[in-house]
C-alpha cells in the first residue's frame, strides 16, 4: 500500500525522479517530498533532536515537528527544511539529518545512551558541574549528540531580495475562509493580497472530500482562483508565508520563489522577503491536529489524523496498511472516513469517549469500520510501527497496524495573533485556545478562530473580508455564502494516557516527554513560562505548534488548576524559520552596504592607488610604486615629496554645508565655541563644535563667501551627524533664526595641494583674474573664480599638513579633470599624489587632532584648544563644559610623544605609566591616540592624552602595550613636531 491507483491532486503524466539518502525514488508533480516518500513506502525520515529516536512524518503541513531534512548538496545544501512543505521537483536530492552513521542504525540512539543526561533542566543541571569540564567534555558531546542539520560550507550561490507591497486588505491563508475573505474584499474594489504558504490554494479543501454548493469543493476553489485572477487589484501570492506581524500594519512575509526548482530561474532569486503594509488583515491560517501523549507516540507510523487524510486524499498515498485511528473528536472520524474512501483500510477507530455521538457510530457502521469506544492506546511496537495496544473497558488488545492516526483535537493556528502580546484564550467547548486580543487591524476567520465547520469557515471569511473592506470605505457584501456542511464540533478534552508504556512525547521536535513535565512540576517550575524554559517545551523551530497545549494541559492536571488559569506562552516572530540570506536580500558581499566613490576615484585607481574604507567612502590610502617594499616606504615617499615640493589629495569626502540667510553669523556663534559673526568676507576660520554635554562633537573650517553666505566643512565621519545637528538647532532650539542650510557635500569635488610649490601649481591652472599670490589670497583666505579655462572654483587657503596649502573645489563632474590638470601643472615640480596614510602622518607631525582624538570623550581643554573658546557668548556645550570635572588638571590632555630610543616603534592604544609604577588601572595616566613614523624626523612620533600632560614636557613615561608586548620609555613633548610656529603656512 503506497500510491493508490487513482485520485489525488497529483499529475500522473509528470513523473519526477528524486533521491533520499542516496536512494532513487519517483513521485509526481503536485507531490511534496513528504507525500512522495509516503507513496514510496518510506516511513523512517529522521532522528530526533536529543535522543536520536527514529521518526517519521507526523503532519502534512508546516507544523511538522519530526521530518526535518537537508535539501540539495554542496553550496546549496539547506538544513532543517520540513519535508512536508518541500515541493517535489525533478532531481531533488534530500537527506535525513542528525543521524550517525546512518538513519537506519544510529549509534547514539543505542540504549538511549545520553537520555539520563538530557532530561528536563539538563542545561542548568549540567552547568552546575565543574566548569572546567564544560569546554572539553560536555559541549563537544552534547553538540555531537543533539543537533539539527548541517549548513552549507560554501557561499550561497543564489540571490535573495527584498520587496515592498501595499494593500487595503491582506488575507493570510488561502483555504475556504481566506478565499471567501479575498473574494469579498476584492469584489468591493479594495486592493487585496492573498498569501498562502502552499503551492496550491485551497487549504484543507484539498485534503477533504467535501461539497460546496452541492458540487465537489475543488470546483469552488477553481472558480474562486479564476475570479481572483481576473480582479486587477487582487494579487495572489502562493508559496509565501507571513511570518510576523509588526507595528503600523506591517507584515513580514517570505516568498519561496525558486525553492521548488533545482536552481532558481535565471535572474530570479531563491527567496524574496516581503514587507507588506496592509491597512487591514484577515488571518485565515486554519488549524492543526494535536497529538495525544502516550507511550510510544513518536514511533514512525504515528501521525495526525488529518495527515493521514491529507496523504490519502490529496496525494493518493499511505505509508502502510492498515491504519488505526485514536481520537477524542468527530473531526478525526471524518478524516478516517475520507481516508477509507480514498483506499486506506481502517482497522479500528479508538475513541476515548465512552459514547461517541450516534451519528458517527452509524457512519462508521455503514463503512464497516470497527469502533472501540472508551478506549486508549497504551503502547506501540515495532521500530517502524507494526502494532498498537489498546485498552478499553478493562481489556487489553493488540491490533496490527502500520499507521496510527491520532487526534487530540484541533489547535487553531494563531501564532500571528500573539505577536503583539495578545494572549490566546482557552475555549472549553472546543478544547483549544483561540486568539485573544488581536493586533490592531487584524481579524481572524475560520478554523484559526475556532470556527471549524466548512460552512462556518466560508461564512466567517466572507464576513471578515467584508468588514475589513467596509472599514476602509469600500462597499462589500458578505453574502451570499456558498453552502456547505455545518457539522458541529464534538470533542472531549483528552491529553495524556497516563497509564501507558514507554517514553511518551509531548514535544516531538525538542524531545520533551511527559516525564519531563512531571519533573518540572516536582522541581517547582510550574508557571508556563518556567515550564517552557526548564523543559525546552515549545522552544524548537516549530515554536511548539503541536506540543504547547498538551504540555500546559498536563501541567494544569498536575497542579490541579484549570487550563484557563494555567495560561499559555506567547508566540514570537518568525512563525516559521526565515533564512538569514532572505533577511539580507541584496545587501551581501560587495553590496553589503553602498560604496561611495570620490569624484577622483577612477583617476586614483588608474594611478595604482590602494583604497581604504572611510565610512561608506572609499578613499585613496596610498599610491604604491614599483620597487617599494611596503606601505610604510610608500607613505614615507609621499610625505617627503609633499614637504619638499608639492603633493595632492582628494578631500571631497569632507562634509560641506551651505548656510545662507541674515542670521548665519549669529547661528554659527551659537554652534561653534569660537566666533564667526566677525569673520570677514573672503576669510576662513577653524571652528570646534561641542555637544550640549560639553564634549567635542566635530571640527572643521568655515568660510564666509558673502555677507549672508557661509560654507562649513565637517569631518568625513560626521558629515551627516553635523547636518542633523544643525537642523536640530534651527528647527528645535532656535526656529526664529533666518538660516537656510543645504548639504553640498556631493556637489563639490575638492582637491588639496600642499607643499612649498603648491602656489606654483595652482597659479598654472587658475584663470585670470584670480589672484593666488600671498597677498591676493593670504593664509585662511577664500577666493572664488575659475580654473582650467572656465570651470567655476572656490579656493581655500587652508592646511592640514602644515605646508603651504590650498583646497580647490570645483563642481563634482570636474573633479577628475581637476586632478589631472593639477598633475600636469605640477609635473615640473614632481607633484606627488598621496593618500590618507600620508595625510595622517603629516597631521600627526603637525599635531592636529583627528578622529582618534575627537572620540566623543574629549573636551576642548583636553585637546589643548581651550583658548579658542569665546568667553563673550553662549554656545552649545558651554555651560556643561565648565563643570568642575572638565577643569580637573588631572584630566588626560593632549601632548606629543617620541621614543627615548629613536629605534623604538610607538603603538596607538599604549597606556602611560610613571616609571616604577605597576601596570594596574589605578596607575593609568592616559593613552596614546595616534602614532606615525615621521619621515621628516626619522623616528616614530605620537599624540596622546596624558594626565597633566602640558606641565610635563620633557619628562619620560612608560608606554605600556600588553596586547602587543611593548613597554618602552617615551618622552613627552609639545604636539607639533614640524614647523610648530606655522611659518610654512604663511609664506
Amino acid at each position, binding site marked *: 500500500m503506497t500510491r493508490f491507483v487513482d485520485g489525488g491532486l497529483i499529475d500522473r503524466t509528470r513523473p519526477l525522479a528524486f533521491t533520499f539518502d542516496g536512494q532513487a525514488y519517483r513521485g509526481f508533480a503536485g507531490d511534496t517530498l513528504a507525500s512522495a516518500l509516503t507513496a514510496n513506502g518510506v516511513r523512517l525520515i529522521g532522528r530526533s533532536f536529543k535522543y536520536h529516536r527514529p521518526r517519521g512524518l507526523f503532519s502534512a503541513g508546516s507544523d511538522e515537528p519530526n521530518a526535518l531534512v537537508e535539501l540539495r548538496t554542496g553550496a546549496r545544501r539547506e538544513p532543517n527544511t520540513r519535508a512536508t512543505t518541500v515541493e517535489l521537483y525533478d532531481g531533488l536530492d534530500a537527506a535525513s539529518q542528525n543521524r550517525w552513521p546512518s538513519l537506519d542504525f544510529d549509534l547514539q540512539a543505542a540504549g538511549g545512551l545520553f537520555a539520563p543526561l538530557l532530561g528536563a533542566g539538563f542545561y542548568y543541571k549540567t552547568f552546575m558541574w565543574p566548569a572546567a569540564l564544560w569546554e572539553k567534555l560536555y559541549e563537544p558531546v552534547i553538540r555531537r549528540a543533539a543537533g539539527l542539520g548541517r549548513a552549507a560550507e560554501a557561499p550561497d550561490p543564489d540571490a535573495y531580495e527584498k520587496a515592498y507591497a501595499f494593500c487595503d486588505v491582506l488575507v493570510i491563508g488561502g483555504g475556504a475562509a481566506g478565499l471567501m475573505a479575498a473574494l469579498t474584499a476584492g469584489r468591493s474594489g479594495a486592493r487585496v493580497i492573498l498569501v498562502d504558504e502552499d503551492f496550491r490554494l485551497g487549504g484543507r479543501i484539498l485534503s477533504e472530500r467535501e461539497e460546496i454548493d452541492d458540487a465537489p469543493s475543488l470546483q469552488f476553489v477553481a472558480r474562486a482562483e479564476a475570479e481572483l485572477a481576473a480582479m486587477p487589484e487582487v494579487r495572489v501570492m502562493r508559496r509565501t508565508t507571513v511570518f510576523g506581524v509588526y*507595528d503600523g500594519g506591517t507584515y513580514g512575509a517570505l516568498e519561496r520563489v525558486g525553492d521548488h526548482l533545482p536552481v532558481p530561474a535565471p535572474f530570479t532569486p531563491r527567496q524574496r522577503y516581503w514587507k507588506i503594509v496592509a491597512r487591514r488583515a484577515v488571518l485565515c491560517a486554519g488549524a492543526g491536529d494535536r497529538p495525544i501523549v502516550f507511550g510510544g507516540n513518536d514511533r514512525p507510523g504515528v501521525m495526525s489524523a488529518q495527515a493521514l487524510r491529507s496523504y490519502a486524499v490529496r496525494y493518493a498515498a499511505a505509508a502502510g496498511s492498515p491504519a488505526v485511528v485514536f481520537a477524542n473528536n468527530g473531526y478525526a472520524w471524518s478524516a478516517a472516513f475520507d481516508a477509507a474512501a480514498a483506499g486506506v483500510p481502517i482497522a479500528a477507530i479508538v475513541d476515548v469517549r465512552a459514547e461517541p455521538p450516534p451519528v458517527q457510530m452509524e457512519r462508521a457502521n455503514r463503512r464497516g469500520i470497527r469502533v472501540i469506544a472508551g478506549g486508549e492506546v497504551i503502547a506501540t511496537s515495532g521500530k517502524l510501527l507494526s502494532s498498537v495496544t489498546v485498552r478499553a473497558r478493562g481489556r487489553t488488545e493488540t491490533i496490527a497496524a502500520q499507521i496510527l492516526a491520532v487526534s487530540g483535537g484541533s489547535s487553531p493556528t494563531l501564532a500571528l495573533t500573539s505577536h503583539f502580546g495578545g494572549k490566546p484564550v482557552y475555549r472549553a467547548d472546543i478544547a483549544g485556545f483561540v486568539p485573544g486580543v488581536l493586533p490592531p487591524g487584524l481579524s481572524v476567520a475560520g478554523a484559526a478562530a475556532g470556527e471549524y465547520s466548512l460552512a462556518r469557515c466560508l461564512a466567517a471569511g466572507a464576513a471578515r473580508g467584508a468588514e475589513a473592506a467596509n472599514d476602509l470605505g469600500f462597499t462589500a457584501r458578505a453574502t451570499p455564502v456558498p453552502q456547505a456542511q455545518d457539522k458541529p464540533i464534538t470533542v472531549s478534552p483528552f491529553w495524556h494516557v497516563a497509564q501507558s508504556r514507554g517514553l511518551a512525547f509531548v514535544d516531538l521536535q525538542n524531545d520533551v516527554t511527559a516525564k519531563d513535565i512531571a519533573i518540572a512540576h516536582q522541581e517547582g517550575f510550574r508557571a508556563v513560562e518556567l515550564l517552557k524554559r526548564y523543559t525546552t517545551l515549545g522552544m524548537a523551530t516549530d515554536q511548539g505548534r503541536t506540543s504547547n497545549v498538551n504540555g500546559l494541559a498536563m501541567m494544569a492536571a498536575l497542579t490541579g488548576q484549570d487550563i484557563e488559569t494555567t495560561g499559555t506562552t506567547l508566540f514570537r516572530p518568525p512563525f516559521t524559520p526565515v533564512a538569514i540570506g532572505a533577511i539580507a536580500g541584496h545587501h551581501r558581499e560587495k553590496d553589503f552596504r553602498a560604496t561611495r566613490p570620490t569624484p577622483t576615484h577612477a583617476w586614483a585607481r588608474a594611478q595604482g592607488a590602494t583604497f581604504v574604507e572611510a565610512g561608506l567612502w572609499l578613499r585613496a590610502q596610498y599610491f604604491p610604486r614599483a620597487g617599494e617594499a611596503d606601505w610604510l616606504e610608500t607613505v614615507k615617499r609621499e610625505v617627503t615629496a609633499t614637504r619638499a615640493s608639492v603633493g595632492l589629495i582628494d578631500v571631497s569626502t569632507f562634509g560641506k554645508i551651505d548656510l545662507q540667510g541674515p542670521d548665519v553669523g549669529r547661528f554659527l556663534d551659537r554652534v561653534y565655541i569660537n566666533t564667526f559673526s566677525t569673520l570677514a568676507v573672503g576669510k576662513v576660520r577653524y571652528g570646534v563644535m561641542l555637544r550640549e554635554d560639553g564634549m567635542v562633537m566635530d571640527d572643521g573650517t568655515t568660510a564666509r563667501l558673502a555677507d549672508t553666505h557661509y560654507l562649513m566643512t565637517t569631518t568625513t565621519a560626521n558629515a551627516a551627524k553635523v*547636518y*542633523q545637528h544643525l*537642523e536640530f538647532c534651527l*528647527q528645535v532650539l532656535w526656529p526664529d533664526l533666518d538660516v537656510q542650510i543645504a548639504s553640498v557635500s556631493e556637489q563639490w569635488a575638492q582637491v588639496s595641494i600642499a607643499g612649498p610649490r603648491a602656489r606654483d601649481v595652482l597659479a598654472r591652472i587658475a584663470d585670470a583674474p584670480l589672484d593666488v599670490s600671498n597677498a591676493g589670497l593670504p593664509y585662511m583666505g577664500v577666493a572664488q573664480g575659475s580654473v582650467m579655462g572656465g570651470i567655476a572654483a572656490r579656493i581655500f587657503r587652508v592646511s592640514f599638513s602644515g605646508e603651504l596649502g590650498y583646497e580647490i573645489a570645483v563642481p563634482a563632474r570636474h573633479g577628475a579633470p581637476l586632478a589631472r590638470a593639477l598633475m600636469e601643472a605640477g609635473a615640473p615640480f614632481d607633484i606627488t599624489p598621496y593618500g590618507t596614510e600620508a595625510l595622517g602622518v603629516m597631521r600627526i607631525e603637525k599635531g592636529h587632532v583627528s578622529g582618534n582624538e575627537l572620540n566623543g570623550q574629549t573636551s576642548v581643554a583636553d585637546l589643548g584648544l581651550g583658548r579658542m573658546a569665546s568667553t563673550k557668548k*553662549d554656545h552649545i556645550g558651554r555651560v*556643561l563644559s*565648565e563643570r568642575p570635572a572638565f577643569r580637573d588638571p588631572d584630566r588626560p590632555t593632549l601632548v606629543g610623544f617620541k621614543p627615548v630610543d629613536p629605534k623604538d616603534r610607538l603603538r596607538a592604544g599604549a597606556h602611560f605609566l610613571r616609571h616604577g609604577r605597576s601596570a594596574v588601572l589605578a596607575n593609568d595616566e592616559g593613552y596614546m591616540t595616534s602614532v606615525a613614523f615621521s619621515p621628516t624626523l626619522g623616528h616614530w612620533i605620537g599624540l596622546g592624552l596624558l594626565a597633566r600632560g602640558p606641565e610635563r614636557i620633557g619628562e619620560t613615561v612608560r608606554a605600556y602595550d600588553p596586547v602587543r608586548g611593548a613597554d618602552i620609555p617615551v618622552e613627552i613633548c609639545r604636539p607639533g613636531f614640524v614647523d610648530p610656529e606655522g611659518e610654512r603656512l604663511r609664506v
Partner: protein
Amino acid sequence: MRIPCPYCGLRDAHEFSYLGDAAPQRPDPAAPDAADAFHDYVYLRDNPAGPMRELWYHGAGCRRWLVVDRDTRTHAILGTAFATEARS
C-alpha cells in the same frame, strides 16, 4: 512602525531617527542656576509607560524634526507635528 510625517505622509520608522522626550527645553544659559538646569536638560529623562511626546528626525525624507505623540506601550502613533510649530 510607521510614522505619519506631516509633509511626506506615512513612512516606515526606518526613515527616522529617534532623539527622545520632546519636553526638555534648552535652559537660559545666563540664569544663575544654569549649571543645574543644563544638567537636567541633558541627562534627566522621564520614562513613561503610555503616551509620550518625542522628537524624531525624518533624516531619510524631508529632514524635518518632528514631535511625535507615541504610546510607548503599544507604539500607537497618536499624532505628529513639525517641531518648529509644535514647540513654538
